[in-house]
């Protein structure tokens, strides 16, 4: 053994040391150490659980946030669409009303024009008639000789005697 470089006494001392250490360790340290290890393990497990729970919560809240955002966008889009539709509808109504009013105004104006045309026409006719008769009277004044006047008077009296009495 000495030829291999192994010191027997040292070996035995080491062995006894080791045994002593083992005994002491087992007697006094093993349980608390194991307990400590278990506690560490449990702590780690709990941490992992908490971590996964937190991750799960985060995922859920992220999903909820996304859902809320999506719903919000959808609602906003719906509101915009409704507003556009209402605006279009209102625009159409206003246009239709404006068209109707324009038509009414056109009709009234045409009617007024027709009335004024009739009035002008009647006035012109009246003036032409009056003027014609004035011209005829003036012409007759120059043309009628006394003889003609007498003949006309006789004819008028003849006709009158058939029809009338004093008014």
């Amino acid at each position, binding site marked *: 053994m000495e030829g291999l470089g192994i010191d027997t006494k040292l070996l035995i001392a080491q062995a006894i040391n080791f045994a002593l250490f083992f005994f002491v360790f087992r007697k006094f340290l093993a349980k608390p150490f194991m307990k400590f290890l278990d506690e560490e393990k449990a702590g780690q497990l709990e941490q992992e659980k908490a971590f996964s729970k937190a991750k799960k919560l985060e995922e859920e809240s992220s999903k909820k946030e996304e859902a809320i955002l999506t719903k919000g966008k959808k609602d906003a889009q719906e509101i915009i669409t409704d507003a556009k539709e209402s605006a279009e509808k209102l625009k159409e109504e206003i246009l239709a009303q404006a068209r109707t009013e324009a038509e009414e105004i056109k009709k009234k104006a045409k009617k007024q024009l027709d009335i004024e045309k009739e009035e002008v026409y009647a006035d012109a*006719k*009246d003036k032409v*008639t*009056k003027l014609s*008769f004035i011209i*005829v*009277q003036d012409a*007759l*004044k120059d043309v*009628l000789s*006394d003889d*003609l*006047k*007498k003949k*006309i*008077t006789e004819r*008028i*009296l003849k006709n*009158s*005697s058939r029809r*009338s*009495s*004093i*008014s």
Partner: protein
Amino acid sequence: MKIKPRLKEDLKKYLRQKQEEEEKKVTITAPYRLSSEEVKNIINLFPELKGKRVTQVLDSSLLAGLTIRHGSKVKDLSLKNHLMSLENRINELA
């Protein structure tokens, strides 16, 4: 305005007198001087004019024919009146 009864009576009397005087008169208006023959013919045509005093008035605007005024009544037999009636008829028809 209240008129006194006496004044009212006098006015009535005066108007009555005037009317009677007018009833006795006949005014013939013509565009030329009518002969007595013509006047006679006219009076024969309208018997109510018999016995009345006839006055002639010249009015060339009548053109032809005549008008007879007896009291408050007037008979318009003038050509001018005929033309005016024709004018009114044309206006009505047009």
